[in-house]
């Protein structure tokens, strides 16, 4: 393989040379034609290998069920269905006789169906002669003669009714497993605002959106993703507001997902985002229906995934990770003030430890002289350079935070007290760290908690470690180098065609009204134009 590639590249070189002279004498041709051909062949080979692997993989999942037509014999059908499901023990086959004497069987998965519906409205209705109605009395009733669809319905919690002498089976909607109710979201609590959050069930989540947005233009597009999990997802948008190319792009990417399992919306987020190699989230997630509705009204697209309370919102820009739905529920002075506080806390969370390192080891002349004496006194017993001191403390606080997240509720605060207070105090008095360092670590941690979005806060938390290392190497110069790198990276990011830093660069004055400063609603008359909404007017007809 390698040998072949090598000879190919040599031949390629020779071929490049003559056509290149040729291009000078004849017309404008591309010099590296042979090189690009080589690349194309290589890409094609990679693609074909990948496709082969994928088809092999697909055979193992739902597509492995042959899409045959069912027969009209009850026994044959039952054998067919049971063979596909491998005589799984949670598969219930309830045989009974329908009132006109036909043999029937009801297949469902134990625990996934509402038992009351099954016994009361299917079996009793079909069997008892006192009821004149012929068919099962469930709210959704379909029929099919396809094996694959029958299997799929059994697996998603429907009861499949097979009648002898008919090659059509009835698919009854009996889904009714135990589910968590609508509760207050744990991760995004607000002081003022609605208390309901998404649950794990897709239809409940879509109903929560519908109940807030009684717009006939609200569209929910259904997709099934994941060969083995067959997860249902809804791509939600408002027709007439959302930019159609963005919607199409999202649908295209969702359709192209090729994975065996989707267990959380985070899978989808990582599979459809633009840049894989970025610490920053390019798609927002939220548990709050009101936030989803607000974003839909800005012309964005939401993706609801079955089995998780976290909905995705795309496209996302950087500034919206520092906004909370509460900003719109309070008066604009308060909202603006809180947004500024969040900005400051982000800067503290990112820069504080590295600024300490830079000041104390490179630029002590910048610190006021009294403070520098106090700092030197505090540091006099510390055996490490300030980089090491900061790295150790920051690592310790990250460990502490991770530990308290995993612990069950009542023990969590204990860890905080033991870790932060006892260990911190003891470390200072033992002379391991300086008191200033403890203050800085505490401020950093509190600062990173003030971010409304958890995933954006993680990115900031993570980036402060390389920043500390660079500050230890080059002082303030190093900090600035890294900030420029982050800014280059942020500028290069795009979320579904929308530049990530949008209201700031490229500058967008309409969207700026709702960035750091949340203008009063009187002035928020237009939707932010960066998402290219079709209907730009949010509020019209006001005469001034």
């Amino acid at each position, binding site marked *: 393989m390698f040998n072949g590639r090598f000879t190919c590249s040599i031949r390629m070189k020779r071929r490049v040379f003559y056509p290149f002279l040729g291009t*000078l004498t004849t017309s*404008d041709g*591309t*010099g*590296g034609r042979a090189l690009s051909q080589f690349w194309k062949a290589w890409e094609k080979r990679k693609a074909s290998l990948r496709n082969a692997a994928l088809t092999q993989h697909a055979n193992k999942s739902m597509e492995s069920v042959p899409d045959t037509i069912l027969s009209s014999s009850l026994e044959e059908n039952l054998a067919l269905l049971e063979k596909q499901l491998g005589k799984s023990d949670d598969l219930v086959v309830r045989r009974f006789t329908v009132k006109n004497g036909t043999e029937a069987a009801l297949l469902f998965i134990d625990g996934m169906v509402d038992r009351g519906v099954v016994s009361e409205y299917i079996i009793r209705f079909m069997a008892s002669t006192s009821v004149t109605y012929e068919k099962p009395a469930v709210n959704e009733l379909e029929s099919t003669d396809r094996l694959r669809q029958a299997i799929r319905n059994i697996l998603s919690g429907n009861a499949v009714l097979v009648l002898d002498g008919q090659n059509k089976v009835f698919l009854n909607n009996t889904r009714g497993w135990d589910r968590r109710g609508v509760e207050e979201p744990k991760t995004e609590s607000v002081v003022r605002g609605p208390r309901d959050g998404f649950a794990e069930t897709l239809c409940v989540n879509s109903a929560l959106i519908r109940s807030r947005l009684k717009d006939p233009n609200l569209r929910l597009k259904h997709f099934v993703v994941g060969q083995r999990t067959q997860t249902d997802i809804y791509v939600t948008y408002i027709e007439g507001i959302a930019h159609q190319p963005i919607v199409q792009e999202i649908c295209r990417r969702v359709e192209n997902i090729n994975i065996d399992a989707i267990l959380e919306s985070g899978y989808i987020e990582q599979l459809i985002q633009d840049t894989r190699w970025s610490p920053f989230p390019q798609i927002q997630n939220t548990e709050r229906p009101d936030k989803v509705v607000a974003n839909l009204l800005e012309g964005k697209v939401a993706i609801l995934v079955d089995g998780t309370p976290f909905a995705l919102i795309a496209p996302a820009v950087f500034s919206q990770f520092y906004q909370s739905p509460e900003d719109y529920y309070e008066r604009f002075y308060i909202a603006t003030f809180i947004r500024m506080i969040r900005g400051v806390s982000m800067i503290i969370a990112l820069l504080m430890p590295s600024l300490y390192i830079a000041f104390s080891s*490179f*630029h002590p*002349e*910048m*610190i*006021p*002289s009294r403070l520098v004496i106090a700092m030197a006194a505090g540091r006099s017993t510390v055996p490490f350079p300030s980089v090491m001191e900061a790295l150790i403390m920051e690592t310790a606080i990250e460990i502490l935070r991770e530990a308290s997240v995993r612990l069950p509720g009542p023990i969590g605060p204990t860890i905080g007290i033991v870790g932060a207070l006892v260990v911190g105090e003891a470390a200072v008095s033992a002379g391991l760290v300086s008191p200033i360092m403890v203050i800085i670590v505490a401020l950093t941690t509190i600062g990173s908690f003030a971010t409304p979005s958890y995933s954006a806060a993680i990115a900031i938390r993570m980036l402060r470690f390389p920043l500390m290392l660079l500050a230890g190497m*080059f*002082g*303030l*110069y190093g*900090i*600035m*180098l890294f900030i*420029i*790198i982050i*800014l*280059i990276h*942020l*500028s*290069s990011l795009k979320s579904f065609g929308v*530049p990530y*830093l949008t209201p*700031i*660069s*490229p*500058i967008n004055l309409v969207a700026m009204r709702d960035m750091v400063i949340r203008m009063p609603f009187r002035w928020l008359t237009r939707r932010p134009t960066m998402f290219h909404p079709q209907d730009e007017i949010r509020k019209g007809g006001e005469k001034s």
Partner: protein
Amino acid sequence: MSQLGKDPQHNTFSLWQMTSLITSTLIGVGVLTLPRTTTEKMFEAGWMAPILGSVLTFFAIWLIAVLSRRFPGLTFIQYSRIVWGGHEQSRLGFWLSLPWIMMFLIALFVTTAITSRIFGEVVVTAVLMDTPLEVIIVSMFVLAVILCLHEIDTLARVNEILFPLILFPILFIALASFQKAEWNNILPLIRVPWETIITGAFETNFSFQGYEIMLIFFAFAHENTGKVKAGFYGIGISVFVYTLIVLAGIVVFGHEELQRVTWPTLELVKSTQVPGLILERLESAFLAVWVAAVFTTVANGYYAVIYGLRQLLKKGMLFQRIASIVLIFPLFFVAIGPQNIVELFKMTSLIGYTTVWISVVSPLIHWLIMLYRDRGRKREKGSDAHG
């Protein structure tokens, strides 16, 4: 030319992005020595030098914008051959335009290297005394390479977002230092002969170098009409900043003292004390923030060189990435070429003279030829030529 229609990066720069691109490229290491270089010949009238010197710059940016407006969507690399050879004789045009293009690219390349070298010198003498000069230079180049790995719209957005970071510190320093101003220092207003003022103003033009990158970047303008406006805004902001900083230098130190310091602006920062601020001495913070200004100068220049090469050889993004990494080796050797700071300043003024050729004479020649051709075509067809 052929790939223009397919190029997704086409027509992406807004007016504001072009303005910030020009200003942030112009404002760089030049500001650090500007109060000294302008007062060298013009004494108390040094603060007029940026204003007078900008006349030539305004003319040059107007020429560049007009040329680019005549060939919308084409860079200097692409339209130069059309100017020289017309649409018919593209091979002749290529060979005739090659010297101009190479002169442009090489001069930009050397400017980039020297800029980073000067900044390295400043950093090493002022804040990071124990760090080798080479490390600072290389770290600057690494940033430039990281930018070059991205598409051209990223360049515009980076400049846009760094623009306030460049503008505010220098305005802050200039305004804060007026506390110690001795306004008598600028009197008498003019006491040197007019010839000296003209040479002084001409030499100040060197500190405006960098706008020649617009020979390339004007091609990506969002609207064809905003180019002249963007150029004038960009230069105008720089002139304002330059005048303010020279004025601050003169009124704080006086022109005799300015001649005795290597980095007068840095001294200005050192002497600035702002009551109520937590930080005692600002020069480290200023230099740290100034990294952004130097970065935009170095990276924009380097990007223009790499992009120019890419267009000259008609290659794609992959070539740009590889070339940007490979070319930092020669760039580094150019940067460490000058043995000491005296040689460095000599080289800077040498580059200044060359840049006049690149950014004034070359566009002027192109423009004249273009006018001649257009008129010839108009006479032939008897109809109006567009542009």
